[in-house]
Structure formats: C-alpha cells, structure tokens
C-alpha cells in the first residue's frame, strides 16, 4: 500500500505514430521516501528512464510531470508540479516548477508522475484520465500560443480537462521554450522544446480518483496554521508588490545586472520599479491555485490589456538589455508568453547579441542596447526561428557564442548553457558559488544563496567558508521544498524548516521521518542531480562562471568595485565539493551512488 498522499506508481506513456500506450512503473515506499516527489522523484525517474547520452530532442528522451504527496491537500502553495527532462539547452538535467490546477488534476489521474516518451506523427494533444492515455491529432493547434491552445482544448474536449501546452517556439524547437498552464510557466531549460520534439502541443489531464492522507485532522490543522503564517511579514514582500520589488532594492545594493552584466546598477531602474508601477499601473493581484500569498501582480498596459510582471522578466527584458520603457518591457514579456519562451534566457541571449553588435561580431546594426522595438523584433525572430539571427539566438547564448566565436563566449552570461538570472555574482559571492555549481545551470531557484549575501551576515564581496556553507544550506532547502513540493516564497515563515517540513510530510504520508532524515534526503537529491549530469558528460570544468565575471570587476554604487577572481571561485567550489562529500573533481563516491536507489 502506498504511503498517504501517494499512489505508488508513475504512468509511462509511449507515443508512437498516432497512438499512445501507457504502462505503470511502480514507485515503492523506499524510492518515494528517499526522493519525496517533485524534482527529487523526477531526477530518479530520469536516471531510470533516460537512455545515457540521449539527445534531449530525440523521441527516446523522457519528459516527466511529477507531483508530490502534498499536491491536493489544503496546505497553502502545494498545488505545484515539477517538469523534469534532459535539457536541450544544457544537455544536463533540468527541472521546472509551476503552480496550477494542472497539478491536482494530473495527480488525480491516479499517478505520482506522468512520463512521456516517443513522437507523434503529426501535431497532437495527449489526454490522460482514469482510463489511461490517448492521442488526438491537433494540426489546427499549430502556431497557437499556450493560452490559446488551452482555450481551444477546452472548446474541443470540454471543461473537465486541465491543459499544459507549448507555444509556437516549442513547436519550432527553440531551446528555451516553456510549458505553460493557466499563465504559469515551467520556464527554464527548454522543456517546451522537448515536448514539441514529440509533436505534442498539449497534455490534458482530468481528475479521476482521490487520494487519502495519513492524518486528515492533523493536515487540516497544519494547513490552517500555515495559512495563518503565510499572511505574516515573511511573505509581505510578495503580497505587497510581488517579486518585482527586488528591482529597486537590487539597484540600491548594486546587484541589478545591466547591459549584459557590464554594470550592476541601472540609472533608469525607477521607471520599471514595482513601487512606481504599482501606483501608476497596478490593476490586480492574483494567486496560484491553493495559495494564500498572492504574489502575482498584474499591471495595465498602455493601449489596453494587462500583463503579469515578475522581477526576472523585467530584469532580463529591461536593464539587461538596457531597456527602460515599461511599455516596451511589458510588451516583450507578453511576447515571450505568446511565443512560449523563457524570459530570462531570451533576455540573456538578446543582451549577449546586443553586445556582439556593439563589438562588430554580429551584423545586425538595429539590435542595440536600450531599443525596445529592437528587443521585440529579436523576440519575434527567435520565436519564428527566422533565418540568420532568429536561428542563431534560438539556440541560446552558449551555442550562439560558440558559433560566433571571437571571444564572445567570455561575455555570454550563462552557466552550463543556462542564462544567468538577475543576481550579479560579483557583488553576491555566496550566490556566485550557487550559480556555478548548480545542476540546472545558472539558477536562482535551486540555489537561494543570495539570501546569505543579502542577510547582512556575510561579507558579500569576499566569498569564503561562510558563503560555501550558505550555498550548501540553501541548496538543501530548495531540494526539499521543490520535492515535497511547497512554494519557496513560504520559506521565511518556517523557524525550524527541516523539522517543520518533516512534521508536515509525516502528517500526509504517515512516515515517521524527522529533520535529519529530511536533510539526508536533500543531500541525496542534490547528489542524484549531479550524478545524472556526470553520467551525461558534465565535469568539474562546468562548475564555473563566465570569464567576464572572473576577470572584470564590477563598479558598485558606493564607488568601490567588487571582484570575484577565478582563484577565489575555484577555492569555494573545492570547499563545496568537500562539504558535499564529492571528490576533487566533483564526482559522487561509490557509497553515495549506492544510496541513490537507482
């Protein structure tokens, strides 16, 4: 019998020609307890089901939607799902989380995960309910945005279905295409391209069953308590202004990457700031399914319509490209949503191209920093994979730089091929390590090491032992939150996180686990991700930052400069390996491999 909150099985769907067949993969208690669900379980599934060395866009490459024991419970922020695959952008493991009713309906098909392999003959949609999977041709969905595909699916198949879809960029294999449902995106690493390569425009799920928890009364009480805490000061930032509140604050502390990471402050940041826009443009606030925080802030667009804005899309399509007109940034964000591409990778790749144009390495003189119209034109070229620039930039900044050459890889702001988020590593040196060693690549969601840099507890300009400890701790916390799954915006409400999380999981599953076991699970999940990457050819040389970050100091608003040398980063990486029990080349020991239950 499966533990509470779980079905103890994954559905493995093989798509071939015009058909989909499903088989059950048993997930025993040991695996579920070792990996918790979500990103952790998805990692285990990739170890099991992805052929070593598989091309991420090949039919054999699996793509997994993964749930957790908490999905469907009344615990706030628990309606989340992970999408896990080998990334076409990095060639390594990628995972992305999204929050919506798709999580609950997908799980209540009766599975803890749905894995898709194969390729349809023509553009299709995949439907999964209690009767298993079936494939429906959908050539008329071609070119639709994810939102329009969702609407069309509702019209054709009825309202009981929940739809996760790709936009036109996913169909065309843009390596940072997204999968979306209800305006939420599994954004990073090109998961939309993986689904598109299977000729699947959308996955539809319909709830067909129920799942019990071990202690219903206990879960209800915990949900009430957690909901109460979610209204407190630890989530105020998200509630009041959303993540865009970071923009002015990051500008004030010189960690707002600007013009392809050539500056850490943006003089025109106030034009894009949540504090200003909220007064001038704020029209609505919204929540994900089952969430009491309500971080989503929606702004009015000039000429009508509205757009949800987050820090990362404003940073990437604004300061990073030197663009300061909020309407240009709103329009660019909306265009990314329509095309179905990751805003961070899109902005990062275009910012790199803008610098290439400045340096005379790309002959597209219209593509200039600060030009909002050029930004939109570049996005369209990417989405359509237009010959020349569109084809080049659709590959992401690392592949594009390898093609352009002339040292342009040095200033391609990416790690392992994933474009960097809006955290300047030279002025946030715990985060610098987090970005360098993370399995997904440059990532702010799987490593929250910036928390230490911004806490006032460490010298953020001089990385050392304290920064390594912070990077390990925040990575461990993220591993648990992304696997059990709870929104990380809740992280501040827990005084003793591992103990409190263990208690929540115990109430749902019936396991008698404690904080120590959860810490062990966190370390296992982090190691499992690394082990997958090592299997796919990653080496210690991948655990680094772009040359620009290591050779060019960045000027701070105070007039001082912050520098991160290659030696300092190497030293921190070495200490990180030691703290993680890895060898000097970042490899997992045989003992630890055995603990992965592969």
């Amino acid at each position, binding site marked *: 019998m499966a533990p509470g909150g779980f079905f103890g099985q994954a559905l493995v769907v093989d798509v071939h020609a015009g058909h989909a067949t499903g088989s059950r993969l048993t997930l025993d208690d040991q695996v579920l307890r070792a990996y918790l669900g979500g990103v952790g379980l998805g990692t285990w599934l990739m170890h099991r089901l992805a052929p070593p060395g598989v091309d991420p866009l090949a039919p054999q490459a699996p793509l997994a939607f993964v749930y957790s024991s908490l999905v469907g419970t009344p615990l706030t922020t628990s309606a989340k799902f992970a999408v896990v695959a080998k990334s076409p952008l990095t060639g390594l493991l990628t995972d992305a989380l999204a929050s919506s009713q798709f999580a609950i309906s997908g799980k209540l098909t009766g599975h803890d995960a749905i894995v898709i392999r194969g390729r349809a003959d023509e553009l299709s949609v995949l439907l999964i309910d209690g009767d298993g999977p079936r494939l429906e041709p959908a050539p008329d969905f071609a070119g639709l945005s994810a939102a329009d595909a969702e609407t069309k699916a509702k019209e054709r198949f009825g309202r009981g279905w929940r739809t996760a879809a790709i936009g036109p960029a996913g169909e065309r294999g843009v390596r940072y295409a997204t999968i979306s449902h209800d305006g939420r995106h599994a954004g990073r690493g090109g998961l939309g391209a993986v689904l598109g390569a299977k000729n699947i425009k959308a996955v539809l799920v319909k709830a067909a069953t129920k799942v019990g928890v071990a202690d219903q009364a206990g879960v209800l009480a915990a949900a009430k308590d957690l909901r109460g805490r979610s209204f407190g000061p630890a989530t105020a930032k998200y509630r009041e202004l959303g993540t865009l509140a970071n923009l002015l604050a990051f500008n004030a502390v010189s960690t707002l990457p600007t013009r392809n990471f050539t500056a850490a402050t943006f003089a025109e940041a106030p034009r894009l700031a949540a*504090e200003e826009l909220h007064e001038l443009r704020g029209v609505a606030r919204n929540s994900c399914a089952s969430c009491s925080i309500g971080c989503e802030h929606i702004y009015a667009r000039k000429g009508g319509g509205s757009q949800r804005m987050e820090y990362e899309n404003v940073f990437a399509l604004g300061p990073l490209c030197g663009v300061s007109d909020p309407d240009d940034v709103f329009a660019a964000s909306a265009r990314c949503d329509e095309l179905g591409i990751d805003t961070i990778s899109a902005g990062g790749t275009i910012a790199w191209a803008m610098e290439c144009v400045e340096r005379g390495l790309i002959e597209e003189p219209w593509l200039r920093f600060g030009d909002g119209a050029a930004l939109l034109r570049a996005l369209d070229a990417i989405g359509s994979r237009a010959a020349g620039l569109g084809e080049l930039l659709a590959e992401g900044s690392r592949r594009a730089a390898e093609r352009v050459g002339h040292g342009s890889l040095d200033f391609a702001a990416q790690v392992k091929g994933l474009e960097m988020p809006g955290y300047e590593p030279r002025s946030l040196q715990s985060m610098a390590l987090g970005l360098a060693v993370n399995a997904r690549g440059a990532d702010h969601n799987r490593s929250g090491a910036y928390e230490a840099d911004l806490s006032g507890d460490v010298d953020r300009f001089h990385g050392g032992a304290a920064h390594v400890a912070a990077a390990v701790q925040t990575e461990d916390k993220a591993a648990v939150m992304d696997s059990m799954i709870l929104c990380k*915006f809740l992280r501040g409400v827990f005084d003793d996180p591992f103990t409190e999380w263990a208690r929540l999981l115990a109430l749902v599953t019936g396991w008698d686990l404690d904080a120590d076991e959860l810490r062990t699970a966190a370390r296992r999940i982090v190691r499992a991700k690394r082990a997958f990457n090592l299997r796919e050819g990653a080496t210690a040389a991948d655990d680094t930052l772009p040359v620009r970050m290591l050779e060019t100091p960045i000027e701070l608003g105070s007039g001082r400069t912050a520098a991160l040398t290659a030696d300092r980063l190497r030293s921190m990486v070495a200490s990180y390996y030691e703290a993680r029990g890895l060898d000097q080349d970042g490899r997992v020991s045989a003992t630890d491999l055995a603990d992965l239950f592969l």
Partner: protein
Amino acid sequence: MLSTLLSPVRGAEGRCRCTGYPRVVGKAAGVVLAGGRSTRMGTAKSELEWHGSTLLYRAAAVMARSVDGPVVVVAAPGQELPELPAGVEVVEDPVDGLGPMQGLAAGLAAVADRADVAFVCSTDLPFLHPAYVRRVLRALTDDIDVVLPVARGFRQPLAAAYQTRIAGLVAKLLAEGNQRPGMIFKHCDVTQLDDAALLADAAVAKYDPELDSVLNVNTPEDYRAARDREPPEVVVERFGALAKGGGHRPKVVRAATIGQAAEVVGLTLDRHVVAALNGDQVTKDGRLPLVAGDAVAFLSADAGG
C-alpha cells in the same frame, strides 16, 4: 623633514553616485588606538556610550567603511574592550604606559603585511567623517611617509595617515626612549594638510565644513556637549514591502546610527529587515554610525525569489 603645505586639489577623485563621497582608497588599513589612560575623562573613553553603542564602536565602524583593508583596534595590555563591529581585529600593546607611540607601532606592525598605508586615529573623535579619512589617505603617495593634518590650529598625529613601512622606525624610536609622535616626523618625509587643503576636498567641505573630524573629547563636559549635538542629516530610502504609500522616495532624516534611521521611518532591523549603507555591505547592525551625507537603504531580508 616637513614639506610645504599642499595646494588644494580639485576634481581629482571619482564620485560616488549615491552620496557624493569620493572613492574609498584601496590597500589602506585602519588603526584605532584604544589604550589611552582617559585621565581627565575619569572613565575609559573606549567605553563611553554613543547612541546605543560606544565611542570605540563608532570609531572602528567609521574606519571599516572608510578603508578597504583590515581594521585593527590597539588595546593596552589586559585592557577589556567593549563589543566591536564584525570583522574588526584587536591587538595588544606589548608594553603598557608608553603612550600613543607604542599603539602606533603595534597598529602599523599588525597591518603591515596586508596594507601599504594606514589611517590611524584615537578613540575619542566622535565626529570623524569618512570623507576626512579618505582625503588624508589620498594625500599619502609613495614618496611620503606621513600625511599630518594641521587642523583647527593643531597638529593631528592621531587623525593622520602613515605608510605601514615605518612600523620598524617607530619601534626603533620607542626603543631609544622616544615616546612623543613628534619624533617620528623628524625622521620621515611628512606632508602637512592645513584647513584649506583639507577643505579643498569637495566632500569634506560639504559634509565636514568645520573639520569636526578632529574634535576630540577629553573631559566629561566635552563628552556631554558632543553627545547632545543634533545627529547628522542622512537620506533614507525604503524598498519593497517597506515602502508603502510612496515610502521608497528618498527622505531626509536626522540619525546617528542605522538603527535610529530605521526608527525614524517606523522600521526595526530584524530577520525581515536589513539595511545597506551607501549601496555597500548589507547589515542588520543598527549600531553602525551614520555621518552627514549618508544614504541608507532599507530592504526586505527576503529579497530575491
């Protein structure tokens, strides 16, 4: 060997976008002498209360934000010191009773392997301003051993800049029985800065026009007068959830510490609220001193995500 007074230098420094302060001098250490006898004060000056901390805390913190190198407090043998800002080191004089020369020797020796130059000050300068420290340090070129301000009518050897390479010379003079700092200047290349030269620096002129940086407190009356002064004017900005109702727009307040500035705008530094001074380090330490012209940003400690 004294050189002539320096001519005013104009426009030589870069400007900070936040505050108008010039750039911090690199490879410079800070040395605070805490071991004086405080005879006229009757109480150890290092322990005198200063807006929630101590005079010594303020001096060390001002040093820490003025230099890029290490900051060292020199204590008398066995002297118990009050709490110091994070990262500040303590060295003890090897010998008691030899006055500031001994402290100078110990302080310079403690930082000589990590910094080429050092600004040396006593504990009892409650209005020492970073702009003054930087102005003095910037005048210290390779061919000069000491920059000695002559401010408000007095030589200021305990608010002056020294090459750390003279640590040995100072120790030698001490060993020869010379306990007065004036002896150093007979054996070194010294540049003096008078009031005009100090005030030629735009930041000093703007934020420390009376050269209060060198105003020391020697008696209880001096201390009370200093303590009763109105705190400096600083600019406060709040961000994110801390900035309701237009609160993110800069606001000028009077505050002697970051904690006071927070209080004025209705905030308390805690696990949810941190501060950044002039866009530099992030801190939760409300005792950190403020000076005229500072810009304090308050932000949510959970920034990010």
